[in-house]
């Protein structure tokens, strides 16, 4: 099968390929060709991967980009009218996500300029970087350098221009930075379990991304989680007893948030991502992170061990979890059918993606926002927060005794607390709504 992209024969790729490929040929003394296009010399990365030395640079690249594009188009992640915010940590995955979104945007811009009627607008792109130095004081020094680096990286990706939002993680607690910082530290201090602390911080990070996205008029949040990351998540969720909500977290789209989260790199493994960074000279910055500890760390090293034993293990894990039934919110909400391109509609049909249409679980854990299952209900109703949380958060995040629980509740961001208060009310309302759904005329229905 010949490679369809003409880039393999012509253009800059060939010249670069020659340089990189020749070394490999010298060593092997035999002429090997890319297994896909059969005309270029394959790349060797020397990272011990199973398919090392099989594809040429261009084919490898187009393969990874193809996965990204397929994910984007088949799940209507980004449509022309959208304004997407890319969550950028500086790591490889989010760097690649940013790069790909940029390329998509450049292409859209080209099409826009070339088209006569200019009917399809170019989607907007913004970049968000969460500053976690308030949670990890040890990071403090490195963060300003990192921010400067992020700024220059984002600047280099234009045109089209992209806004950069640097979000301090404590911003979810309010605008007064000193007070917010104080509250964050107190809140984290009151969580005794190391794993719980890590997870709580992750939820806060998501909240701050949501906050900046909705405040600045974005309607999609692109997160660069790759297959390997999700494989670890599948196992950590299982180990923490979150089997019910697991299927919500690993889909391409997660619209339970105000701004839907999309994972376009869900089908790319970590190795591909690092290879791509290496190939394209994409620079990343690794902040000296707080070392992971506890369950999350244990699972990561377990997955790494399994991956070593079988290079496709991560994919298998994610594929298993993908067979679990997703939730109704695991797709872009269809506000208006014309918004979803025809190609996407066809693809959704082709892949026969089925969603659990019934809105059976409308209750979410106020801490981690996971959908709640019947088995999460607690007999102890003395504390509203405790009763409304999922069993995993109750164990690893909430303090065990009453008074510190109350204090913990008072420290939580306002958003979480309001959710607790409305918990009961929303629940019964949606239940009623569900019952009379057939008879209701929706707003957009009238408009059509």
């Amino acid at each position, binding site marked *: 099968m010949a490679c369809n992209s003409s880039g393999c024969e012509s253009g800059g790729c060939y010249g670069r390929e020659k340089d990189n490929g020749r070394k490999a040929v010298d060593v092997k003394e035999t002429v090997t060709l890319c297994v896909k296009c059969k005309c270029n010399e394959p790349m060797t990365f020397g990272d011990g991967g199973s398919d090392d030395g099989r594809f040429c640079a261009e084919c490898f690249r187009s393969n990874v980009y193809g996965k990204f594009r397929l994910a984007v188009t088949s799940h209507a992640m980004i449509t022309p009218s959208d304004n997407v915010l890319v969550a950028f940590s500086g790591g490889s995955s989010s760097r690649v996500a940013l790069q790909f979104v940029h390329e998509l945007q450049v292409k859209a811009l080209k099409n826009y300029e070339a088209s006569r009627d200019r009917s399809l607008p170019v989607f907007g792109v913004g970049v968000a970087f969460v500053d976690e130095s308030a949670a990890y004081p040890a990071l403090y020094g490195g963060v300003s350098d990192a921010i400067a680096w992020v700024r220059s990286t984002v600047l280099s990706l234009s045109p089209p221009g992209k806004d950069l939002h640097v979000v301090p993680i404590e911003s979810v607690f309010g605008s007064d930075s000193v007070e917010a910082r104080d509250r964050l530290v107190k809140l984290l201090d009151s969580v005794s379990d190391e*794993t719980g602390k890590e997870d709580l911080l992750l939820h806060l990070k998501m909240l701050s991304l949501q906050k900046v996205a909705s405040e600045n008029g974005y309607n999609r949040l692109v997160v660069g989680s790759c297959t390997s990351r999700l494989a670890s998540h*599948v*196992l950590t*969720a*299982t*180990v*923490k*007893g*979150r*089997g*019910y909500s*697991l*299927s919500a977290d690993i889909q391409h789209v997660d619209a339970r948030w105000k701004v839907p989260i999309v994972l376009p790199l869900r089908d790319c493994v970590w190795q591909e991502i690092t290879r791509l960074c290496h190939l394209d000279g994409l620079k990343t910055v690794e902040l000296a992170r707080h070392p992971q500890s*506890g*369950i999350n760390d*244990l699972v990561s090293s*377990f997955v790494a*061990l*399994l991956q070593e*034993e079988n290079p496709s*293990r991560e994919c*298998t*894990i994610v*594929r*298993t*979890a993908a*067979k*679990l*039934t997703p939730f109704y919110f695991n797709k872009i909400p269809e506000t208006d059918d014309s918004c979803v391109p025809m190609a996407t509609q066809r693809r959704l049909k082709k892949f026969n993606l089925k969603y*659990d249409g019934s809105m059976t679980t409308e209750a979410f854990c106020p801490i981690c926002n996971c959908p709640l*299952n019947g*088995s999460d209900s607690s007999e102890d109703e003395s504390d509203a927060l405790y009763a409304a949380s999922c*069993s*995993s958060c109750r*164990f690893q995040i909430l303090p065990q*005794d*009453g*008074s510190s629980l109350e204090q913990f509740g008072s420290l939580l961001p306002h958003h979480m607390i309001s959710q607790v208060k409305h918990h009961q009310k929303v629940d019964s309302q949606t239940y009623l709504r569900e019952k009379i759904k057939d008879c209701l005329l929706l707003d957009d229905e009238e408009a059509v």
Partner: protein
Amino acid sequence: MEASEAKSKKQGASRLCCLCNQRRPVLKRPKTLQQICKDCFYEVFEEEIHQVIVKNGLFKAGERVAIGASGGKDSTVLAYVLSELNRRHSYGLDLFLLSIDEGITGYRDDSLETVKRNELQYGLPLQILSYKDLYGWTMDDIVKMIGLKNNCTFCGVFRRQALDRGAALLKVDKLVTGHNADDIAETVLLNILRGDIARLSRCTSITTGEDGPIPRCKPFKYTYEKEIVIYPFITESFSSIVLFLHTYAYFKKLDYFSTECIYSPNAYRGFAREFIKDLERLRPRAILDIIKSGEDFRIATTTKMPEQGTCERCGYISSQKWCKACVLLDGLNRGLPKMGIGRARGGVNGDHKKETKKPASAARSLESKQCGSLDF
């Protein structure tokens, strides 16, 4: 104020058992890390199992129940606890021991000795079925013929049927196995790693094969392996068999915590086991959490196993014309041992021993047959 109260409680716990508050604690309970005394440990251990049995309606009065006894710690403790609870709470069960002898020299013969002692000690009737009786081949013979590759396929397939056939011979209504919480957590993980969604949906159910003639159940579903190890260790009233087992295990340096077959140093399962042990060290509750996850997974009810029929040769449950055991045996007897293995790779029959969670049931037609005269 409450904090100080909690503190004083904690101090008290270091001196007295935190359940009865009377005796000195002798152990830290693996499941909860509570410091408790010996008597309380027996009580919670046995009471938890009793509650599992009652809540899940595992048994009905008057039933004949076979205990799959390997001679390892799990089945030994299960036999003891079940006969105790049966007496104490008047379940009204007829209990039997059922052992399978795969014919692996140095692996099973020692543990079968233990089972024989159990028979005497608890007065439970024992039935030992060997692969030789059932199939005409011991595992040693099979390994001699096919080598160390794929031999687990044979053992796994044969064992699955052997327990059911033995149960049919004893005319029992139910088969209980000593799978503990660690085993189940491990199976959940392995099914995720392997991508087996159908088994993932079922591996946490406490009773399997209810549609078949002989359902299987796991009363130790929520019982930690460590507690099963502790249980006989601190019991004086526990039979001399267990003492024998323990002294045997300790002095002969026989590691009966991991009853790994000598033919199967299974690295893959080993990883998972090791991982669960590490998890338990970090967070004892993780084992129960994995089981909870396994129960809660949103698996569409349409995910089903292939439709079940019966084997044309032996009448055992099978999705194909012949059941796997018959196919494998046919290959063995015709000198073509590779027959039936190719398609099984990574599939139903390629799995190792603990994946015997297939809806287990035995053929009705077998009941009337003598085990030696099974025509294969």
